């Protein structure tokens, strides 16, 4: 009985828990509630993915109203995977949050912090679950508004301006999306994605539909921080509380990318990407993003900001996969979507452990800490290798599929960019590792101790996941291919 409602429960549970977390009297009680909720969602998302893979797509009618009049939750391998990523990262982040949040956020705000976190979590899950394009907008607003609040909780005053910057850009994006949805609704008279998929082929030649499509893409490109619309991201990631950086870096951009994939390949008819210049634009933006953001990353003095720029570059890889508009390309994008969550999650967590100890993460603050905090340092090295794409790590699997997708199209420039991007990653990760290991430690840093186990354990869970999914990509590749097929990308 209950298993029929998993799809709904995933959204409803965190949504109900959010206000409860806000009124609980102690921060630790809210934390406990959040931990239970996120773990439960993780289990549910796992069950949901299992059900989808074995029994085919799930269609859930909200309130018993049949689509296209009622809202439909429609789950296939792709959104089941994204939902699993979101809830898994949340479930790993929350244990980490206990100490990290107490250190970085004023005590009286902690219940509110967890409340906003749960709202954001519910919003992100809602976006992945729903099969209704207007419903996407609703959940997008829930997740965005709560993430503005979460970012503004950062310790430094710059957190406020970066949250404001994100708010402006995010609202622009959401508005663009809404305009696009409105235009398409005007032409098709439906908001259900499957319904749209049936009606759109008849009207794809209309200029209105093209305009609507462009608005939707630009809107979500803003949320995704696709180059050159990424300007809000480095500030937001740098000044947000570390827990939030971990969570957003590993989930928010992934969900935005999911929506793009869904609209590009499910809602709009197959071949729309290649008929319009969309594919080329994605490729161009991806290439420019990989090169520019990686070079920017090299010159950053703040480790969080360096990793933020690296995220922009990694989003560029995913955009390149979309740009190829092929089965292999989309598979590569989905694989990287999963793997990038693992590596960035681990890296930001490890940096957070350093911030927990010394309260800063500028290159000149962290000198020599590698010897004082060997486990944190080890996590940065291994996750960094994964980011570079060394064989035996998850990052290698991403690069492997991405390059194969490019080779299939004989896109030699793209092949060069992907491999060159890896080398730039060697340079910027090398800078962090050199600072941690080779620079002599200052007096203050000599007395720094290893981070507490509550921070290290979640970090190392992700580090091991990086190695595990590098040595056994059966799960990742299998699900990604399943998802690409579910999207309806034709295998060439």
């Amino acid at each position, binding site marked *: 009985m209950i298993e029929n409602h998993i799809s709904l429960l995933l959204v409803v549970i965190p949504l109900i828990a959010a206000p409860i977390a806000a009124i609980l009297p102690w921060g630790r009680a809210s934390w406990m509630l959040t931990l239970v909720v996120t773990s439960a969602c993780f289990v549910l998302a796992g069950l949901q993915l299992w059900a989808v893979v074995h029994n085919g797509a799930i269609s859930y009618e909200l309130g018993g109203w049949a689509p296209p009049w009622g809202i439909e939750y429609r789950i296939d391998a792709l959104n089941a995977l994204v939902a699993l990523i979101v809830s898994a990262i949340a479930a790993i982040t929350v244990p980490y949050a206990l100490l990290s949040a107490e250190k970085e956020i004023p005590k009286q705000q902690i219940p509110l912090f967890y409340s906003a976190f749960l709202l954001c979590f519910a919003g992100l899950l809602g976006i992945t679950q729903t099969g209704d394009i207007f419903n996407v907008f609703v959940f997008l607003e829930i997740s965005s508004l709560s993430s503005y609040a979460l970012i503004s909780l950062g310790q430094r005053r710059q957190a406020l301006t970066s949250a404001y910057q994100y708010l402006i850009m995010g609202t622009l994006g959401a508005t663009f999306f809404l305009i696009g949805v409105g235009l398409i609704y005007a032409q098709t008279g439906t908001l259900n994605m499957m319904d749209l998929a049936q009606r759109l082929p008849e009207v794809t030649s209309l200029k209105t539909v093209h305009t609507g499509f462009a608005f939707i893409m630009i809107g979500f490109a803003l949320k995704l921080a696709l180059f050159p619309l990424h300007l809000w991201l480095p500030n937001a990631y740098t000044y947000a509380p570390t827990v939030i950086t971990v969570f957003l870096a590993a989930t928010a951009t992934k969900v935005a990318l999911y929506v793009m994939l869904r609209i590009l390949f499910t809602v709009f008819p197959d071949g729309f990407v290649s008929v319009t210049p969309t594919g080329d634009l994605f490729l161009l933006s991806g290439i420019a993003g990989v090169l520019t953001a990686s070079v920017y990353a090299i010159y950053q003095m703040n480790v969080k900001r360096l990793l933020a720029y690296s995220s922009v570059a990694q989003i560029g890889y995913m955009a390149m996969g979309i740009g190829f508009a092929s089965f292999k390309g989309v598979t590569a994008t989905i694989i990287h979507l999963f793997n990038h969550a693992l590596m960035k999650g681990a890296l930001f967590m490890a940096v957070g452990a350093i911030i927990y100890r010394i309260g800063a993460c500028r290159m000149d603050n962290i000198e020599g800490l590698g010897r004082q905090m060997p486990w944190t340092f080890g996590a940065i090295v291994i996750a960094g*290798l994964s980011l*570079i*794409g*060394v*064989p*035996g790590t998850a990052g290698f*699997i991403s*690069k*492997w599929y991405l*390059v*194969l997708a490019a*080779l*299939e199209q004989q896109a030699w420039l793209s*092949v060069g960019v992907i*491999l*060159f991007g*890896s*080398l730039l990653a*060697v340079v910027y990760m*090398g800078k962090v590792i*050199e600072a941690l290991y*080779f620079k002599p430690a200052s007096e203050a840093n000599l007395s720094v101790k290893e981070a507490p186990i509550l921070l290290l354990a979640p970090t190392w869970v992700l580090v091991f996941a990086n190695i595990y999914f*590098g*040595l*056994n*990509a*059966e799960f990742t*590749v299998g699900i990604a291919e399943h998802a690409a097929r579910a999207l309806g990308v034709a295998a060439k």
Partner: protein
Amino acid sequence: MSTTTLLLLVLLLPLLGAVGIIAARRFPNIREGVTLVTASLVAVLVVIMANRFMSGEVFALTVGEPLPGITIAFKVEALGMLFALVAGLLWIVTSIYAIGYMREHKEKNQTRFYTAFAVAISCTFGVAFSANLFTLFLFYELLTLSTYPLVTHTDTPAAKKAGRVYLGILLGTSIGLFLLAILVTWSVSGSVTFTQGGILAGKLDPAWAGLLYALFLFGIGKAAVMPFHRWLPAAMVAPTPVSALLHAVAVVKAGVFTLLKVTIYIFGSDFILANDVTGGLIWVAAATILLSSLIAMSKDNLKARLAYSTISQLSYIALGAMLASKSGLIGASMHIAMHAFAKISLFFAAGAILVVTHKKLISEMDGLGRAMPVTFGVFLIGTMSIIGLPLFGGMWSKFYLGLGTVETGQLLLLGILMLSSLLNVAYLLPIPIRAFFSKPADGKPYTKINEAPKTILLAMVITSSLCIILFFYPDPFYQLATLAVGGR
């Protein structure tokens, strides 16, 4: 012991040793004991393995399948056995040497040193036994990473700079070119498994074969073919045992070994010969041989000169691989072993001189030979083996390489090989000669300088004796080389 157990033991024992070394970090004597015991066990096991391999047993093991169709798998074939035999035998000798050297030189961070060393050896075996390009690439990269802490061992700014060059070139070429070559191979042939006769014939347009081979040749940066050779001289900031075993044997030989594997088992020598795949590229190796010999002549720092000599000798093997004829490949395979024993002797001697006299420059070594006769005697033997004179093992590999050039009718290449031997004479032989027969700079003979500690001497004598023994008894390596070319 079953074949699988033996194979796993050889691969994992060095790693277990590394764990033991870390566990015993507070007790230097026990720690060194762990190194010695592990290295001896590995040497014995490798010899047993080689014997059983020669008697026809098959060693194969699949560990996992990270990607559909691509496995992490090991399969011992003759070339890998030869490489593993060299690395396994020399590890124990180098360990004996290293203990004397590191203590006498009062190096810091010795635990890190021995740990990284053991891990690097394990990666070397991984490279040697890999059954496909993916597994090989995995261990190839791990070998680079595990030797990085050894290169930057002293933690000085110079070491850090050298470390950057080291990682930059080795990771840059491997990710930028080697990985690309593997991916192209996979997308063209749908396989990366090392297969007798190659996997590309009939699947790859011969017009593109040269380009793909170039990707491999330059992508395998560890083979140090110019212009990607700079990491090797840079790596000389490492302690001498590292230069001796890793940067004259394990790491660099992993490079040329990979090139040979690609030549024999990916392209297939028939495919190369039929389509003249390497016709132009072979001159890159020839140029590297001559140019680096010339550069070696201009170096006054002994280790730098030896490094450039190594670059030159590595290109002998690359050249033999690209000849792709039977004798050429046999010569190249044997040169992996012959050069290893000779070059490690030279580095051992250089390290002994450094430990005792703190001298690095050749111009300061006049007259030193009379104070350190054993050291310079070893140096002389290593030199003659490198030159390829009879009575020394190095003659055999050069003989077959020369035969390979004749077989393919490349007489100009034969000329280059001979010219290079002359250059070897010119830049190596004067060092022991001046040490024995010139007078010290200030005219007074050295009286306070004695030979290096006994462990150092022991290691040197072993390796240099092997140089001579291999002249009379090159059989194990010759047979393995023939098997590799003939196909097993």
